[in-house]
């Protein structure tokens, strides 16, 4: 019985560690700030979630288990929000760096105008 | 115990690194940072000494550990004061230079302009 639980722990923690690897690979390989931020906030938070899941059967006491879950939820909440805020700051910086690219078509221009309505819509929940 | 020794050596190196930064960095904020690096090196050394004193079922000597907590809080309040003094100096003069020949406040970008962005 307990060995079955241990197998569960091995598998989930190994998977969680894999997502940390994926996040770091994304950080190294992705071309710009926004995609790198995406890799970091998504993959690492999932990795942490899996590690927490794997550790749950190993901790003693319900209280410690609840605290582990609370840690993951807090990291998710603040990670998602901080990621969102950093992304907005980065976008403002990019726009300020290249204001003339905003209007006409072109690789950079079309990308930033495509992002415009999405971000606006997300801004007013 | 070997691991604690490694932290001791890192602590000694941090004191050296911080001292170097304190001398060569002209920006006062960098000096405050460097001072904090020295401080944390000293704290780490203290932590190693506490760890070496593990006895009576405790993971470390609680007396130096308690002093460390006091030290961290006091270091924070000193940092807060230093940073506030620096920001006020910048607001009043528009510069943070520590050189003795301070340029007159009128020269350079005025402080009002920088504060407007707030």
């Amino acid at each position, binding site marked *: 019985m307990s060995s079955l639980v241990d197998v569960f722990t091995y598998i989930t923690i190994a998977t969680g*560690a894999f997502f940390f690897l994926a996040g770091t690979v994304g950080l190294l390989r992705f071309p710009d700030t926004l995609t790198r931020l995406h890799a970091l906030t998504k993959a690492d938070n999932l990795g942490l979630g899996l*590690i927490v899941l794997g550790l749950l059967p190993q901790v003693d006491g319900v209280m410690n288990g609840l*605290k582990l879950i*609370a840690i993951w939820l*807090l*990291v998710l909440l*603040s*990670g998602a929000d901080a990621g969102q805020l950093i992304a907005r700051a980065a976008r403002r*910086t990019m726009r300020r760096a290249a204001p003339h690219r905003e209007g006409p078509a072109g690789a950079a221009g079309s990308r930033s105008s495509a992002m415009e309505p999405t971000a606006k819509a997300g801004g007013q929940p | 115990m070997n691991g604690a020794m490694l932290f001791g050596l890192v602590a000694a190196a941090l004191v050296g690194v911080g001292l170097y930064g304190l001398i060569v960095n002209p920006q006062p904020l960098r000096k405050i940072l460097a001072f904090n690096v020295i401080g944390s090196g000293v704290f780490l050394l203290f932590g190693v000494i506490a760890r070496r004193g593990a006895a009576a079922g405790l993971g470390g000597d609680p007396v130096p550990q308690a002093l460390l907590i006091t030290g961290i809080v006091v270091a924070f309040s000193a940092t807060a004061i230093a940073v506030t003094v620096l920001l006020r100096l910048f607001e009043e003069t528009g510069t943070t230079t520590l050189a003795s020949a301070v340029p007159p406040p009128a020269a350079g970008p005025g402080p009002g302009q920088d504060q407007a962005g707030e």
Partner: protein
Amino acid sequence: MTDFLFAAAGFVLAMVAVGLVRVLRGPGDADRMMAAQLLGSGGIAALLLGGAATGNGSVVDVSLTLALLAAFASIAFVKFAPFSADDSSES
């Protein structure tokens, strides 16, 4: 089990270290601010794994505090940074 948990903690720490090297190189401030995020998730994961390996239950409380406050520097960054255009300070 203990060795496995330690190995996992070391692996996550290594990933954090590699990520830190990348993130601190910039080019912009926003990239650098990711360092705090990186340690927010990776550092907490390593702490929890190490704490479970050594059976130190109080580590959970340290992680809880870190989880609560890890976003603080990022929030300060967004609130105060003047968004330097392309970071002309770097070549």
